[in-house]
């Protein structure tokens, strides 16, 4: 299985390459990619030199152009496609059918991957992307169990890529407007979720209160570790109960599922975290590279030592285990 690693900066890209990534994914410094955070991502020139560095080391670069193009501003997205192709990207990761269509028509030899943001969750949807745009790989949404992934891999003539580590969307990717409901900024349109620009903290009666836009997302008692107020991992209440109604503040760690994912026929494993620093990327990539080597040697994966690196500092195998639902 290939190891696909994130890079939000040229330094992180080199770190991922050096640490043993098979491929690195990254995006331009604008709203065309789903990690459009201040201080992150690549200029066209940085991408060119990053690709040259990666290719010199036998590593591929996948360019994520995976937000949905803004009406009336299509050229921002089509220019990104053209620039990535011109920079010799090994594949483009695209979510918007209109942009996939553009890329397939304009650059018929360019390898295209269907972004997780496209939410292609079954063989029929995947076949649509293959047939319509010649997509060669699909990044599966984090809503599927391992047996379901295996069934998909058996049925489609398309490579599959799954997330194994990092941030965990609880909702199906590409179909969540929770962030824009509270802040006006959405993953699909702006490439951000629960953006830091809309986060406020305040102390009240010994509690730390985190708010996103006009809504309280969590309250922490003195001494309780305060996580980032990502909407779906906040504490809310109903008439029945209060707490983490959607998901606990956990991250995805599917290390324990790697043998099953390999058996399922998955082509590539993806690590989330283009917003994370170089040290994080280096450590996670090295760890997964080692685990994969051991897996190839028939060694059962020991529990990872990556928990400390995760957001919320606790992990889940997410939808890969059916009981998660």
């Amino acid at each position: 299985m290939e190891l696909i690693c994130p890079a939000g900066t040229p330094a992180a890209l080199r770190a991922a390459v050096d640490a043993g990534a098979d491929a690195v994914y990254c995006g331009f410094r604008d709203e065309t990619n789903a990690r459009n955070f201040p201080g992150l991502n690549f200029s066209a020139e940085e991408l060119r030199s990053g690709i040259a560095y990666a290719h010199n080391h036998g590593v591929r670069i996948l360019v994520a152009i995976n937000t949905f193009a803004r009406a009336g501003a299509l050229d921002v997205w089509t220019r990104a496609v053209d620039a990535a192709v011109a920079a010799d990207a090994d594949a483009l990761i695209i979510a918007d059918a209109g942009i996939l269509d553009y890329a397939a028509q304009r650059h018929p030899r360019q390898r295209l991957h269907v972004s997780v943001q496209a939410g292609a969750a079954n063989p029929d949807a995947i076949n649509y992307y293959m047939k319509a745009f010649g997509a060669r790989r699909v990044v599966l949404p984090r809503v599927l169990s391992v047996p379901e992934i295996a069934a998909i891999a058996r049925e489609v003539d398309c490579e599959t890529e799954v997330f194994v580590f990092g941030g965990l969307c609880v909702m199906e990717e590409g179909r969540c407007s929770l962030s824009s409901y509270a802040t006006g900024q959405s993953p699909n349109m702006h490439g951000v979720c629960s953006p830091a620009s809309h986060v406020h903290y305040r102390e009240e009666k010994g509690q730390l209160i985190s708010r996103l836009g006009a809504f309280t997302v969590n309250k922490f008692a003195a001494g309780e570790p305060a996580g980032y107020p990502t909407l779906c991992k906040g504490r809310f209440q109903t008439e029945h109960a209060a707490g983490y109604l959607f998901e606990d503040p956990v991250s995805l760690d599917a290390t324990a599922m790697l043998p099953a994912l390999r058996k399922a026929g998955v082509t590539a494993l993806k690590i989330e975290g283009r917003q994370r620093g170089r040290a994080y990327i280096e450590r996670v990539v090295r760890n997964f590279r080692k685990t994969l080597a051991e897996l190839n040697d028939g060694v059962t994966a020991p529990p990872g030592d990556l928990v400390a690196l995760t957001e919320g500092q606790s992990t889940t195998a997410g939808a890969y285990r059916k009981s998660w639902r």
Partner: protein
Amino acid sequence: MQLTLGPVLYNWQPDQWRDFYFRIAEEAPVDVVVIGEIVCSKRSPFFTGHMPDVIERLAACGKRVILGTLILVSLKRERQQMAEIAANTEFMVEANDLTCLGSLDGRPHAIGPFVNIYNEATAAYFARRGARRICLPPELPMDSIRTIARALPDVTTEVFAFGRVPLAISARCYHARLHKLSKDNCRFVCEKDPDGLPVTTLDGEPFLAMNGVQTMSHACANLLGEVGDLAASGVGALRLSPQRCDMVAVACVFRDVIDGRLTRDDGMHELSRIYPDVPFANGFVHGQPGAVFVAAGAGAEPRARAPQMRDAVQ
């Protein structure tokens, strides 16, 4: 301007579901009714038996019936159900996911608000493949709506204009989780909340509504104040999403305001009476947080004068 009644998103008792549609058929001034379970495939067996009668009644009363498909399709059984719906040639099918678009290719169909059409290129792509009606994602601002609608004059562009906004879909059932049940043995607890289960912040402020695997806004989208702008932008239909309130009356208010028989302010007042206790919101269309309500005339630009509004025939 057409009015479309969207599919019931909640888990209603089958008899109530049937009676709701019978009344819509006979009394509601809507042109199109989208019908079918699109949120959770486990619910559909309960009212499948009523479906033929409901469809027949709606059609007999002159409503155009469109069959909606599931938003998130992952099980084999669900794929088979979607294939059966797509194989239907008697009624137009509204695809809420790309799953059955392959089999609808080349024949007239509708696309629901859960397929991500955010721009004119994507809308045109789907129109070339047979989409005749496109209900845009609820989070789109007016500029995007206008650009898409004007680029595709031959397609009926529809906008989500009334009802709690479906904000997210998940593999996980939040109703089951809340009641400490597994999804497979959920006991259909979502039926206890036929208008969604209110989710508040820890301060007790209303925020969201839980509907099984779907998460909705607490506030009710209400674009009555924008019908003039929407019509002027080339929007051809407004979607009214069923809530636990008098939807016939809701449709009458929209129809009367569109046709100039009722002022916008009076219509707004009426809607507050018909669906009390739930705040209205229209932030998305104004490019603001979706939970916000922007009062009419609060914008910097003077409101466009509503042109002569006529029904577009599709």
